[in-house]
């Protein structure tokens, strides 16, 4: 029934199952076939709460899935002896409850029998905290009992299955975290790109994608994120490189880059921050490479809100706020004075007051501050 190469063949399938549930289903189907069984199932059980459920199954009737969770998991007589469920152990059903007792149970008559299950071979590939994962291989009444060879073969398979399930759990947890972070990034009104030290795009969120599509400030050239304006090319590249080489990620590391967008447009202020190491770059055994996040306020942000926030945060007067709005819209000091209908010396005085109140010393620094305020996710950096 099972050739000498059986274990090698099925172990290959088992490891494919780490990343692909359908491969694990194939493993169960293969075990069912090779053990001449009617059903195989991976079942999880908590011996403290006596709750359990099917994880994956082949040959069981899905009509019984819910009743197992709600009722039979707590009444499964095979689960009455928990020492049999240590990792790596294999047992046959009648070693826990003899057949003549099993057939008298409700579990048999109303759950197993309708699914044509009677003989059982069980192995425990994995225990995780209170949760025990076991593999049940079932034969019908009238089929032969599982013998010593069945037990030995399943015992040899268990370490492989245990490792694969463990890695799969780990991977699924990572995927879930990744997916949540991805959703969070997409929900932010910020554009976020993540690049490597050479500016090669690793990933970006929806807002970043939209911003690239509109060609605002940044574009992709040969897979690298570069400033759309030629004069700023070097600035962004240097800032990315500096962030990638920063000794530690997070903690306020990184800098800001202001990209000019031409007459009539406010400059684009980007926050360039070092992130954690990327482990999938290059060959599998390559040195981990620091990644860099580039964060832009995004196109949806409202500059007027940002100016209002600035005014509230730093106690600017209405005149000082109006000046800031003019500067933010790309006007220089002379143009702002003309547009506001005041003298050049008045706006210079107002600007000095703004510098004093905000703790800045240049228009560029002021613009970066306002740009930061326009990015809701960064507002927490404001001084209280």
């Amino acid at each position, binding site marked *: 029934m099972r050739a000498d190469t059986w274990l090698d063949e099925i172990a290959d399938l088992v490891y494919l199952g780490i990343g692909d549930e359908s491969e694990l289903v194939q493993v169960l189907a293969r075990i069912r076939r090779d053990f001449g069984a009617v059903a195989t199932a991976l079942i999880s059980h908590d011996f403290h709460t006596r709750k359990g459920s099917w994880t994956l199954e082949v040959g069981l009737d899905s009509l019984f899935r819910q009743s197992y969770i709600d009722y039979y998991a707590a009444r499964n007589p095979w689960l009455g002896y928990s020492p049999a469920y240590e990792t790596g152990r294999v047992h046959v059903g009648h070693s826990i409850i003899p*057949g*003549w*007792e*099993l*057939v008298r149970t409700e579990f048999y008559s109303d759950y197993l*029998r309708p699914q044509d299950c*009677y003989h059982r071979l069980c192995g425990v590939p994995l225990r995780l905290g209170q949760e025990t994962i076991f593999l049940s291989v079932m034969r019908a009444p*009238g089929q032969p009992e599982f013998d010593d060879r069945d037990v030995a073969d399943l015992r040899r398979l268990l370490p492989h299955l245990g490792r694969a399930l463990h890695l799969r759990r780990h991977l699924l947890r990572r995927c879930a975290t990744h997916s949540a972070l991805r959703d969070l990034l997409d929900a932010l009104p910020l554009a976020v790109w993540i690049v490597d030290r050479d500016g090669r795009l690793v990933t970006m969120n929806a807002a970043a994608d939209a911003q690239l599509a509109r060609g605002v400030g940044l574009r992709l050239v040969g897979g690298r994120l570069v400033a759309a304006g030629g004069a700023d090319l070097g600035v962004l590249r240097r800032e990315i490189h500096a962030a990638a080489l920063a000794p530690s990620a997070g903690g306020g590391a990184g800098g800001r880059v202001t990209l000019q967008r031409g007459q009539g447009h406010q400059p684009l202020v980007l926050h360039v921050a070092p992130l954690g190491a990327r482990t999938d770059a290059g060959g599998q055994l390559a040195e981990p490479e620091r990644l860099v996040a580039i964060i832009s306020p995004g196109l949806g942000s409202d500059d007027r809100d940002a100016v209002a926030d600035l005014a509230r945060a730093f106690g600017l007067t209405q005149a000082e706020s109006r000046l800031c709005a003019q500067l933010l819209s790309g006007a220089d000091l002379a143009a702002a004075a003309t547009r506001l209908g005041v003298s050049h010396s008045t706006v210079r005085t107002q600007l000095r007051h703004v510098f004093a109140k905000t703790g800045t010393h240049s228009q560029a620094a002021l613009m970066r501050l306002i740009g930061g305020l326009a990015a809701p996710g960064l507002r927490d950096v404001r001084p209280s």
Partner: protein
Amino acid sequence: MKTLFKIDLSKHPSELAVKPHNRWHPDIPIVEWVKPGAEFRMECYDWTGGQISSNDDANEIRDVILPRVHYLSGPVGVEGAEAGDLLVVDLLDVGPLPGSEWGFTGIFAKENGGGFLTEHYPRACKAIWDLHGLYCTSRHVPGVRWAGLVHPGLIGCLPSRELLEKWNKREAELIATDPNRVPPLAAPPQAEHALMGQMTGQAAGRAAKEAARTVPPREHGGNCDIKNLSRGSRVFFPVYQKGAGLSMGDIHWSQGDGEITFCGAIEMAGWIDVHVDIIKGGMAKYGVTNPIFIPSPCEPKFGEYLVFEGISVDEFTGKQYYLDAHVAYRRACLNAIEYLKKFGYTGEQAYVIIGTAPCEGRISGIVDIPNACATLAIPTGIFDFDIRPNAGGPVRGVPTGTDVARAT
């Protein structure tokens, strides 16, 4: 003749100092050791341990607690007997206990054991028989009288542990195919109501959980219900356990082949006189794994039988079964009952007659596809009237108004 096992009909079996047992288990202690060549008497309860009385109340049959049966006297150890030997048992004589010369027949309810024809006769009924020396009659089944063919329905030796496990495994596997069937496919071990002889305490409790019920015949003999394993016969039992551990009970005054009403014989309490001997290594010498026996030289003599044939075709559906002797014998029995009803018997009375009278059941043909042919031969001499067919048609021979006792 020394009485090795004494009973007291005024007491429940569990109240005796030396208790019977109603399960098979290798650890049930030997109650007495004898040497090969010994002769001794064993007193036995009726199979139910006294649950049935000599009255017209058939509710007793309806309410029999089946996990209590069968109460067996023994086990007797035979010195020198070892696994692989044959235990030679001469049934020197069998009879009713003095003062208890009566017996009973029950048709068991479908929900409580059933019987061979339970689909036709699903309700509990009872017939009481009076024993008159060699002969028996019944107020519930008039018009018949015959000489008894007295025999233990159940006799055999203790199983080994290995044999017990084999029984439990295979019977559980059968039950597993239809665990909710009524009547059940087999009777699995049941600790409740188990009486483990002289075992006590936790050991008895543990053994009772796995001890085999006494219902079916098995390799060691047991509940074979063979009417011709009667007084005067010599039985050779395979020995599976040191000392053999011979036990017996379920005495029948008489029975038809098949004991078809389930409690189909004339059941009684009584005694069995036994002589034992050993054939060392007899199982291998003769290739024996199940008992073999030589019937008695003394059996009731009948010169004529009326024989009913049956074939393996279902009476309800008309479905053809392939060489199925069970179906064929059922049809033969049903044919006999329908015939006897023409003489005034109720179906239940006729059912009781063919279950208790020494009728011969045979597998007559088992190769003629697709039908097995089974026959049931009723001795015509047991009736007070002529039951043979003739041109004039059947003449009612049974007084009107008589019937078996029926459960409410």
